Structure formats: C-alpha cells, structure tokens
C-alpha cells in the first residue's frame, strides 16, 4: 500500500519530542542522583537499556551459530551508532530521542514497487524469523546476536526491481532532533551503504526488526536495519529510511570518509589488515582471550563464491 510521499523537510508531529520523553529523562536523572552513592562500587553503573516489546509469531530460522550468545546487556549498551553519538555508550544514553513510530521507508530507483511504505507495510507481508549470527566490528571486537527479521531477498523480490538494477543502496534517517549526533558532521549525513544485487539477494542477508526476541532498540538501529553477517558491522546500516535500486555502485559512508581504510565490499578478512590495526584476531565481547578472525566471518562456505576470481586485497 502506498502512502503520500513526504518531503525531507516536512516535520511530522511524531518528530516533536513528547513531554513524556523529557519527564522520563528527568526521572532517570533524579533516580541516578539519588542512587549514585549506592551504585558507586557496584556493577550497576550503566544506563537503562530501554523498553522493548516482545515480538510474536517468530519462527526459528535455519541459520544459527553454535557459540554462546552475547550478553543482551552488552549488545544493547556497547554500540557504534554515530547518529546517536560517537562514544560507545552514547547510543544507549541518547536512545530516547529516536522515536520510531510511525516510520516510513522510501523505495525508489529501478524498481516497479517504488513508493513510500510504512514500516508495517514493508515488513508484515513476510514471516519474521530468528537467526543467530556472528557480528564482527571493523574495530576488532565481535558478538553473537539472535536477530529477528526477514530475508532481504524476499522484500526485494516483492518490490520487483528492474533487470538493469545492479546494486541496492540504503540510507539512514537524517533528523538532528531524533538523532542528536547529527548536529555535528562527524560523518557526512545521511549514513549510506550499498550492496551488490547478488549480495543483497543472498539468503544470509536480512532486514532485522528485533533482537533477543524483542523489537529493535534505537541504539541497535530501530526500527529496521540491515544485517550482513559476513561483512564488517558498519555495512549493516541502521534505522533505514530509503532503499534505492541503482545501476551504478552507490556511495557508502565510511568508504567516502576514508577509502583506503574502508572498502565498498568490507568483507571480514583476517588477511587484509585495516591500515591502522590488525584484523587477524578479534575480542569476542565477554571473553578475555582474543580469538582468530575467520574469513567472511565464518560464512565462507555460503558466500565465498560471490567473490570468485576477485582479488580480495584490492576489493577489500
């Protein structure tokens, strides 16, 4: 179903921070001040994780990892999401700014189903499934996360891209009110990412709307984000508001920021170091010893064929 196309400068009433959010913050600060003494030497010196709603009707997906899940607390408080701040604990602290209901996603470019879709219209025709994936950050730490979402391929097929579409491009919301990190230009906004069509259609690639059985929290990219488990985490763009089908390779934010350090492909590769640090090992969050990083983050059997004949040291 199509809804009216909104212009980027339109301010919807939903974008205005409701007074409840301010009050919540005040209450949080007050509780924090009162409890600070008691909390000083306990491990509780952590921001509140946030509210989630359990997701229903989720089926177990076929992909899982035989490794212990990362602590939910860690996965929802240690985040890279520069739209909510550049520190690891900024996203959870600023999460309350990011209101995600209502949410729309613009579909455009070389595609039959172009238009503006509500979150529900984009996701609900598909069956939600849970998949446990490894997540490897380009900063050499990793997690194991039970995502809830839908295969991107199913959504793409429903939207019917034209034969000339070779790439899929994604954009994150730009709204300095809901995303206070965007007040400064730490990165050129909007955050952009892209996949080759065969990567986007790969069965491992998913659009995630939740994790740990519950709806996605703002700090993790609510309400809808990409998950591409064989690529470094920054490829898995968060809080998506636009999906475009293009003939040319689309721009990708970190690649624009520093092309020598972040390639378009950014497949997890222990043999190609980041210019400033080694990618041979990673620290799994919650573990003391580093573990060796696996080619394609351990998904080589599924995806290595996508890159047959390509020089991965040049197409990093």
């Amino acid at each position, binding site marked *: 179903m199509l809804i009216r196309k909104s212009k980027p400068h339109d301010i919807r009433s939903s974008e205005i921070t409701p007074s409840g959010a301010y009050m919540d913050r005040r209450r949080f600060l007050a509780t924090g001040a009162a409890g600070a003494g008691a909390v000083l030497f306990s491990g509780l010196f952590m921001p509140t994780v946030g509210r989630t709603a359990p997701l229903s009707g989720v089926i177990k997906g076929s992909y899982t990892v035989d490794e212990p899940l990362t602590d939910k607390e860690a996965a929802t408080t240690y985040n890279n999401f520069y739209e909510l701040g550049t520190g690891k604990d900024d996203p959870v602290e600023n999460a309350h700014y990011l209101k995600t209901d209502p949410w729309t996603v613009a579909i455009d470019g070389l595609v039959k189903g172009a238009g503006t879709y509500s979150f529900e219209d984009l996701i609900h025709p598909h069956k939600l499934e849970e998949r446990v994936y490894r997540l490897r950050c380009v900063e050499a730490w990793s997690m194991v996360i039970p995502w809830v979402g839908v295969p991107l391929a199913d959504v793409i097929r429903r939207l019917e891209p034209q034969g000339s579409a070779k790439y899929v491009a994604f954009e994150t919301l730009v709204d300095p009110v809901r995303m206070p990190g965007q007040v400064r230009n730490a990165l050129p906004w909007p955050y952009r990412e892209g996949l080759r069509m065969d990567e986007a259609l790969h069965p491992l690639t998913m659009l995630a709307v939740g994790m740990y059985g519950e709806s996605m929290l703002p700090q993790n990219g609510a309400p809808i984000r990409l998950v591409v488990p064989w690529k470094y985490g920054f490829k898995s763009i968060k809080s998506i508001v636009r999906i475009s089908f293009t003939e040319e390779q689309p721009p990708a934010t970190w690649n624009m920021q520093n092309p020598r350090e972040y390639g378009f492909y950014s497949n997890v590769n222990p043999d190609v170091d980041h210019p400033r640090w080694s990618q041979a090992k990673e620290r799994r969050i919650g573990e003391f010893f*580093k573990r060796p990083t696996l080619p394609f983050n351990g998904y080589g059997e599924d995806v290595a064929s996508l890159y047959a004949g390509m020089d991965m040291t040049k197409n990093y």
Partner: protein
Amino acid sequence: MPMPSIAKRLLKPAVFTLCLAPALWMGALAFTGGLGANPIEALTRGMGDWALRFLLVGLALTPLKGITGWGWPVRVRRMIGLFAFFYAALHLSSYVVLDQFFDWSAIWKDIIKRPYITVGMATFIALIPLAATSTNAMVRRLGGRRWKMLHRLVYAAGIGGVFHFFMLVKADLREPMIYAVVLAALLGWRIVTIVRKNAATERAI
C-alpha cells in the same frame, strides 16, 4: 604568595592522593564490572587518557607559576610528571597484558606497522629517562644544565602523546583536538616567554 605552613605540609600528600584517585577508581570499576561491555578497551583507553592529562598538567605548572607567581606548582611538578609516567606504564601494560596477552610477535608487528602504536611506544620510551633521572641524586650527578637539557624531552613526549591519540580516532576528532589545543597553548606560552626575554635582553644591550 607565601603559604601557611599547614597547607605547605599537606600539599604533597593531597596532590599524591588526587593523582592516585583515577587509578583506584578505574580499578574499583574493573573489579565490579563497571567498565562496560569491553572492559579491556575501557581500561586501556582510560589509562591512556590519564597519562596524557598528567603530562599536560605537568606542562602547565611552569606557565602557572609564571602567570601567578605562586611557588607551589613547581614543588609538585616532579610528582605530577612521575604520575604521568605511572599512567603511561599502566596504559602500556594494559595493552601488552590484557589486550595482546604477551603475544610478542603481534606486539612487534603492531609497533613497526601501525604508526599510532609506533608513536605511542616512542613517547613511552622518551618518558623512561625522565622518570629514571627524577631523583635529587640524579639531578646532582647529571648537573643542572644537562639534566635540564634531557628533561626538554617532555615537550616531544607531549607532542607524541597527542599525535598518538589523533592517529587512532576513526572520525570524531573533538577529544584529541582539546588535548592539542591545550598543548599548543602551553608550548606557545613558553615560546612567547622566550621571545619576550630575548627582546628584553636586546633592549638592555
């Protein structure tokens, strides 16, 4: 400004306690799970932050004396400098022990391949002779002039420390920028002072 004798006696113990507080605080957080999801990174970063802060505080004491005429800043300068070395040593230990767990080949590769680690290591090495010659006996042995010459290495260490921070940041340069501005101001004050002094000498001639 003459100081009451009680303040004089309390100055060093008070400064010592203050300087030790960040280490105790971070240690307490580490043992109570208060360092977040990646405590090793938090500890390494935290110790590095404090090493740089103490280095800059140490460099601020001479200008502070010059501007205010107070005597006490210079009396705690050695202690502050040694604390900068202490935090730098904890920072390096955290990297060697907790981050790399004595993987010497990985550490060596880091030092030669990663410019920010090369600079960080060089900065630490520059601090070693300063810490080693910090005793009164060493000042006497070296002689004031040579000791002073040697201790100018602290300027290189300050610049190296700020560069080290700059080079490891991915996109948000605000924090290293603050350190850079403070360092530039402290070194700038010294340059201005020298230039003025030279000008005054010339006028006198």
